[in-house]
């Protein structure tokens, strides 16, 4: 392999890492809900794409600048997140994890179908920022739109971490994730924390959906299942319940995905991602940053 190939490979990986920021956001959403409620919300990626679609609806009326569309997606994500909690989690007794799993599957199917119905299954164009900007760094070309995606995603992560670690709300959320019963005895409303968790992860998801659309250039209902699988893989590799883990795993998976594609082609790419997951499950089942396990 000569120097040009090497440069291409690194370029590919770099692009992948930038795109991986969206995987990181999805991973954060999955992992946060798991950390607080000990349940997996399988409809999360679909809801994120749904939020991006919803933001397009808002654009349809007015010729809005891209940044407004992204914000609309975040807002829509928050609303959808709250609805998902209400319909898929609130009324199902905690002792029935299978029932909540199934209800999130139902929501996944429902959201997918709503998207297909309202768009007749046709992929829609999604706005991007800086798509005509290319930044040259030596032999490498960094796409402006990807860099924006990366930057906005990182900003979102920073805000989320600030929220979790510097606010009372974040403190309450972390308390509930560690000891729900004791938290209640301290006066924390579990329902409120759960709703807020879902709304916040919904906002994160809305941004993830928007950024995915911006990076690819369009939205399609076919995105939800692969994104669900990728998001879950990122969550597990990063360690269920760990936000730093999800972030790092997202970037790693994004980069590796492109590397696999570069060396082995598109059709085998996903197979290697699976193998990566299996390797982790065999050698490090807790993921990169496993949640500490109690004595019981």
């Amino acid at each position: 392999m000569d120097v040009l190939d090497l440069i291409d490979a690194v370029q590919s990986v770099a692009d992948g890492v930038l795109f991986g920021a969206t995987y990181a956001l999805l991973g954060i959403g999955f992992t946060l809900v798991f950390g607080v409620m000990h349940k997996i919300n399988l409809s999360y990626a679909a809801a994120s794409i749904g939020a991006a679609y919803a933001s397009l609806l808002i654009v349809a009326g007015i010729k809005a600048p891209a940044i407004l569309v992204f914000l609309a997606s975040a807002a829509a994500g928050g609303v959808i997140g709250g609805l998902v909690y209400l319909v898929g989690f609130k009324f199902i007794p905690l002792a029935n994890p299978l029932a909540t799993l199934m209800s999130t599957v139902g929501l996944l199917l429902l959201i997918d179908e709503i998207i297909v119905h309202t768009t007749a299954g046709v992929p829609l164009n999604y706005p991007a920022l800086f798509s005509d900007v290319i930044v040259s760094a030596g032999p490498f070309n960094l796409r402006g739109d990807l860099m924006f995606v990366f930057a906005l995603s990182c900003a979102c992560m920073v805000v989320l971490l600030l929220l979790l670690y510097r606010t009372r709300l974040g403190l309450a959320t972390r308390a509930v994730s560690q000891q729900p019963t004791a938290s209640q005895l301290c006066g924390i409303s579990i329902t409120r924390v759960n709703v807020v968790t879902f709304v916040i992860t919904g906002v994160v998801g809305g941004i993830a959906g928007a950024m995915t659309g911006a990076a690819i250039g369009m939205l399609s209902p076919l995105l939800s299942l692969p994104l669900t699988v990728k998001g879950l893989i990122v969550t597990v590799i990063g360690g269920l319940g760990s936000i730093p883990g999800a972030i790092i795993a997202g970037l790693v998976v994004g980069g590796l995905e492109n590397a696999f594609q570069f060396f082995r082609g598109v059709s085998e790419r996903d197979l290697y991602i699976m193998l990566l997951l299996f390797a982790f499950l065999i050698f490090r089942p807790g993921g990169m940053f496993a949640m500490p396990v109690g004595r019981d």
Partner: protein
Amino acid sequence: MDFYLGLMQIIGVHTLLGLSAYCVLLTGQVSLAQAGFFAIGAYVAGMLTVLAQWPLVPALGASAVVAGVMACAVGFPALRVKGLMLVVATIAFGEAVRLFFFNFTYQVQAGNLKLGPHGAEGFRQIRYFPEHGWTTLDVMLFIWAVVALVMAGVWWLDRSRAGAVLRAVGEDELAAQSAGINITAVKVSAMTIGGVIAGIGGGIFAHYTTHIEHLQFGVVLATFAIAYPILGGLSNVFGTLLAVVFVQGFLIEGLRFMGDWRNLLFGGLIVLAMNVRPRGLLDAGAVLALKRLIVPRKDGNGA
């Protein structure tokens, strides 16, 4: 008439899929790998009858064995993965199997036709049934004979000590270990049994549908597999059958009345069902109530 026979065929095969998930779910393992074993069974059986001219039943037997061995191999690492992580691991396994078949080509020249699996295009011309003069009715009866056999087997398992042990492991692994149950053996066995049943189902599926391809065996089929026992209730095999009838009947018959909206309503219906009856349609309480209706109380004093 053919339409209803076709519907019965689908219900039969999906019941096998559901039963395969049922056995694994009893031990508390939420496995989205059943579609993967189903796919393996489909391709193995198809290749044996088409490429190696095997008769159907031995081919199904072989697909059961291969799928079972794969399931056993999956069962061991699955032990290391707790709870909801197993969901992700099994999704990934199922996807890996699907991707394998997406890339898998093995063709044999037969006259002026090329037969065998052909990557993304799938495996066409699995024409065992037409070539041997089976009518749609014959196929349906065969499928239901197999389903009845498997259901009887699982029912018997459920009533035996093995069934109680499976459920004990599903309830509380720590207590089960402390009571002397070898949870490793139990969980791997359950996974293997599930794999065998899924393999048989897949093998039959390949033959009545005559054309299989990777897209049919994705995450959606895997979620259907566990949806049946969860929606139907885990206390009873008949719950799974009921759920299959309901779901497939709704999805296919519903096309008439609701057109394209049936998929929309399907998702919504699942959400509603889980909110209203989290333990499933035929949970322990429902079974008890049904028993009381059917079997008169032996003691004369009533309650």
